[in-house]
């Protein structure tokens, strides 16, 4: 069966520090991968998605970036965190079949201080 791993579960980082969040999927190949951020009262905001290795689409311009170095690995990064980057970050995957549902990881709670 397919599983998705996301880490760390919580993270406290100072303003200006770098960020690296990792997500891996097991049990499937060539998944579509997604990074969402969820802030209180704002719902799920799509940040990046990828339909294949090295293919990244950005939905929101900001100081975050994403990379997909391997088929089932998706990384969210920042060179310098801002206070406004605080939130709950969720990685998700779906297969490429039309209208297939998203499968989410358990998220990373990021607090930038």
């Amino acid at each position, binding site marked *: 069966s397919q599983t998705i791993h996301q880490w760390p579960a919580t993270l406290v980082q100072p303003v200006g520090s770098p960020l690296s969040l990792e997500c891996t999927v097991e049990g499937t190949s060539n998944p579509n991968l997604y990074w*969402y951020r969820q802030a209180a009262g704002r*719902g799920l905001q799509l940040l990046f998605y990828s339909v294949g290795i090295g293919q990244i689409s950005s*939905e929101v311009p900001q100081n975050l970036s994403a990379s997909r170095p391997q088929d089932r690995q998706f990384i969210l990064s920042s060179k310098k965190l801002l206070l406004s980057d605080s939130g709950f970050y969720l990685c*998700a995957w779906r297969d490429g079949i039309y209208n297939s549902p998203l499968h989410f990881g358990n998220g990373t709670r990021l607090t930038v201080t």
Partner: protein
Amino acid sequence: SQKIEQNSEALNIQEGKTATLTCNYTNYSPAYLQWYRQDPGRGPVFLLLIRENEKEKRKERLKVTFDTTLKQSLFHITASQPADSATYLCAGNSGNTPLVFGKGTRLSVIA
């Protein structure tokens, strides 16, 4: 821009009653809508999908409707239980474009 709106931020109901959550969409016509459940501190979990040409879909105590005239989906939980307390998210899209999510409705079922 494409929008999914869940007009109730929170809903409280008595155990045993039917909970009805509303999802409206504007500025586009999603080919299908999906409903997810999210517990505090966890990622959303997929519950049901309904296509635009389907009027209704059921799964155990859950029922979803899709009204393209009203541009609305209703999500019902019958015989609600305290364990059904969670935030429920509506999402939609067309084709293989990324899902657009609503902000969710936090349901509390009171024993």
